[in-house]
């Protein structure tokens, strides 16, 4: 059986990948996808931990995370559309009005 730490390490890597995407991609859709990646890393931890501990709470949590991720994606994409309507682009660099 694969030790649970391996899964955690994998999750950390994936989480960091997602974080990189969110940090460095200027395309807002890319940012959203990167966040999905981060959430997946979280899910991995939950599932692996639940398996190692031996209870189901982790899997339940994953279901909720997926729900929330879907909601976030919906709202986020709606925002992307609204943004695109207004500016004709989805690049985050245009979001520079508010600063200071």
């Amino acid at each position, binding site marked *: 059986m694969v030790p649970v730490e391996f899964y955690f390490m994998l999750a950390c890597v994936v989480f960091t990948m997602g974080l990189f995407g969110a940090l460095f991609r200027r395309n807002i859709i890319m940012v959203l996808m990167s966040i999905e990646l981060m959430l997946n890393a979280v899910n991995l931890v939950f599932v692996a931990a639940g398996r190692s501990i031996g209870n189901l709470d982790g899997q339940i949590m994953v279901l909720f995370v997926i729900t929330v991720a879907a909601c976030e994606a919906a709202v986020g994409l*709606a925002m992307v559309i609204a943004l695109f309507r207004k500016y004709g682009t989805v690049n985050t660099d245009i979001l520079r009005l508010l600063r200071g």
Partner: protein
Amino acid sequence: MSELSNFMSHAVFHALAGLITLVSLMVVASKHPVKSAVFLVVDLFLLAAVYATLESHFVAAIQVLVYAGAVVVLFLFVIMLLNLQPDQLRGLRFNAPEAVTLILSLIGMFIMIGVSVAGKPTGLGDGSLTVEAIADGGGNTYLVAMKLLTDFIWPFELASVLILLAIVAAVVIAKKDHKDQPA
């Protein structure tokens, strides 16, 4: 557990892990959003496979159905709708702040990995939920459902409100505001 199956599960895990890492990298590094989305789907499938190795079949299924099947499709749909051109990857200009952040995040990652390897705390969890126990209890899906609808009924119900909320929010956000002049 036999040596062989142990080796097999290790091999499977490492293969999947390698793939996941690679695909994840592709997700964030692909120039074109569509490519990213496709890699994301792949990634989600791979993760579902991992879940399956972890005896979490229901979650694996949901992962495929909802995540890969709905969420990422939504992404693809929006990408197509907006007819986005490939990124110039301008974002990967590396100024000092970006470089510092990159290095620091890597450090953060190693810290987290370092913490992860500390290993499972002893004396925790009843360990009652072995594969056999799952099978005895009526299978993973049954157990998850029971759990969800008893202990987690409150968040479950709230999640429905959350989804309603998300729908309303998405409608409010994406609705064209005719009075508002485009910039």
